[in-house]
């Protein structure tokens, strides 16, 4: 569906009487429902001639095609690829149908993989005449459903919503309408098939209904298996009918009976839930020529919106690209101008070729620097302080200097000491001042004193 409405009207026709349920979805996704009285229905539900725009604002009307006017069928393709299977499934459906596939509307509502790995698909189909007749019935009741669901699929999914399925447990839902009975058979959460029977005037008095139901069930269910029996529909309130059917059927397929809450509006609720929420087995048989005008308009609006969106995206892309490029160029020019300003300031009067700013500025700076370096050097730590530190190191180590030569990054010493180890102390102290020290000691020969020389480098501030 090309739009998701928040309000939905589910309309079912049973014996010429319409049952309408109004449902609305909250922002949290919760669906609330209320059965409308005939008066409320006329006032609130979009009518046949009503504005189609109400699909978005006023709500969606959903009807359903009865099981007797349509069919559901599991088709098994021999292919393992779903994409390939989807291509051959219409041909397989054509073989199965008693009428040409071109005369019907169909929709594959579920794909499953069989135990052999091949693709199996559930198709829902209805003849065009049946769809037309169904729509005319709805129009006679003053409504034109925008979506046409399938009765059997709707009953099955709603039964799963209202009563959780047990895995591998067979389930049969019997929908007792005023004019017909619908059987929906499945196992676990898997939909099996749906059948429809005419409802006799007095079901309790006539065993024909039970026999027909049993015949149908024998085809789908092995005798003796446990079955979960669910009853709903307008006549599910007739306890005698329900008990009679349950008693007769449990003799072959034992199982507990569950009567659904508010059974009369069960199908209408199912239609609303399916229209408002995403889920499995969703189906709309108003396809191609039968598509509602509001849906067509919504699809058209969506196509236009998509085109406009793409157009805007394209314009934005072009805009962003141009802006990004211009900003990049601007930033590059800004950096270039900054370089030109700084280079001009550092090398005044020098013509600097583009790209050679660093080399030219360095060249200019190498010429300028010697003229100002002595001013900066005047603020460096004094060599006199270092001289005092060296002399103090000598005094502390009890050595006597004979010569001392001190420059910014070198120190040459010679002297004498009474002890070999005192030179070592001097060496450590000079190292502490940051010098890399080379100490040479000479053994005392004629005198008692040890002579030493120190060559030290570094240490300068």
């Amino acid at each position: 569906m090309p739009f998701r409405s928040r309000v939905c009207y589910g309309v079912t026709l049973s014996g010429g009487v319409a049952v309408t349920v109004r449902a609305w979805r909250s922002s949290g996704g919760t669906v609330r429902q209320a059965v409308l009285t005939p008066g409320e229905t006329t006032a609130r539900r979009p009518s046949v001639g009503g504005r189609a725009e109400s699909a978005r604002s006023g709500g969606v009307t959903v009807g359903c095609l009865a099981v007797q006017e349509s069919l559901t069928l599991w088709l098994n393709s021999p292919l393992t690829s779903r994409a390939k299977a989807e291509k051959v499934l219409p041909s397989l459906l054509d073989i199965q149908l008693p009428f040409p596939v071109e005369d019907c509307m169909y929709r594959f509502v579920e794909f499953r993989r069989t135990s052999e790995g091949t693709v199996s698909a559930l198709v829902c189909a209805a003849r065009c005449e049946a769809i037309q007749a169904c729509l005319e019935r709805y129009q006679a009741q003053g409504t034109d459903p925008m979506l046409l669901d399938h009765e059997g699929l709707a009953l099955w999914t709603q039964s799963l919503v209202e009563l959780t399925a047990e895995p591998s447990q067979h389930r049969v839902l019997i929908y007792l309408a005023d004019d017909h009975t619908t059987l929906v058979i499945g196992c676990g959460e898997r939909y099996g098939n749906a059948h429809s029977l005419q409802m006799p005037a007095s079901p309790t008095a006539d065993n024909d209904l039970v026999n027909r139901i049993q015949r149908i069930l024998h085809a789908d269910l092995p005798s003796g298996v446990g079955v979960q029996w669910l009853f709903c529909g307008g006549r599910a309130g007739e306890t005698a009918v329900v008990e009679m059917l349950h008693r007769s059927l449990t003799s072959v397929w034992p199982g507990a009976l569950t009567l659904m809450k508010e059974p009369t509006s069960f199908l209408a609720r199912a239609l609303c839930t399916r229209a408002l929420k995403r889920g499995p087995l969703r189906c709309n048989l108003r396809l191609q020529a039968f598509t509602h005008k509001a849906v067509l308009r919504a699809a058209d609006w969506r196509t236009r919106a998509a085109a406009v969106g793409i157009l805007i995206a394209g314009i934005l892309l072009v805009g962003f690209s141009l802006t990004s490029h211009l900003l990049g160029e601007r930033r590059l020019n800004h950096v270039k101008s900054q370089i030109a300003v700084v280079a001009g300031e550092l090398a005044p009067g020098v013509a600097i070729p583009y790209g050679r700013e660093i080399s030219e500025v360095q060249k200019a700076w190498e010429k300028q620097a010697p003229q100002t370096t002595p001013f900066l050097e005047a603020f460096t730590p004094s060599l006199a302080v270092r001289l005092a530190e060296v002399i103090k190191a000598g005094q502390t180590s009890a050595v006597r200097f004979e010569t001392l030569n001190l420059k910014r990054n070198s120190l040459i010493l010679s002297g004498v000491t009474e002890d070999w180890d005192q030179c070592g102390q001097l060496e450590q102290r000079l190292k502490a001042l940051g010098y890399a020290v080379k100490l040479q000691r000479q053994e005392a020969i004629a005198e008692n004193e040890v002579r030493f020389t120190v060559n030290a480098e570094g240490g300068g501030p």
Partner: protein
Amino acid sequence: MKGNALLILQTCALAVFMVGILASIVTIRQNLGLSAKIRNKNETLAQLAVIKQTRDRHQAALRVFEGLSNASPVSLASLGRASATNATPEIRERESRNLAAGWTLRQMEVVFSEIDLNQIPCFLHMAEEARPPWRLVECTLASSRKADGLGHAVLIMETAGKTGRQTPDNSQRRAEKAQ
């Protein structure tokens, strides 16, 4: 007619979108080159900034010197007499060269013979405290065999000055006058 309008809209939208995609691709490619250029230029700018920072430090130091009330350096001979008793240093000019803003760098050799070496730090301190200051560049000390504490000192001092020129002769003359 309506279908045509939708078709035109879709075609235009697709065309504009494709142009947008192409423009984006071209811009991304151009911007890759551009960002590499900007990165290189930023590196250049950073290197220039380092040079400028160094130059600014030099200029700031020069400004301090420019701010001195007296740009003429004090006489080393007078400093020697004032700081060391019984010692008159021999002073020789080693080097002189012009600096920025009319300043001149002078390097002098100060030789003290048979001086009490403990007086050298005092001399150096006074020289460094003078404005413009004298700086010790190199120092050679040799102890004398005559007496403990005596020795020969050769000090290479330098300063930046602006007016006058201190020669060995006139400094000696000034030292003699002072005596």
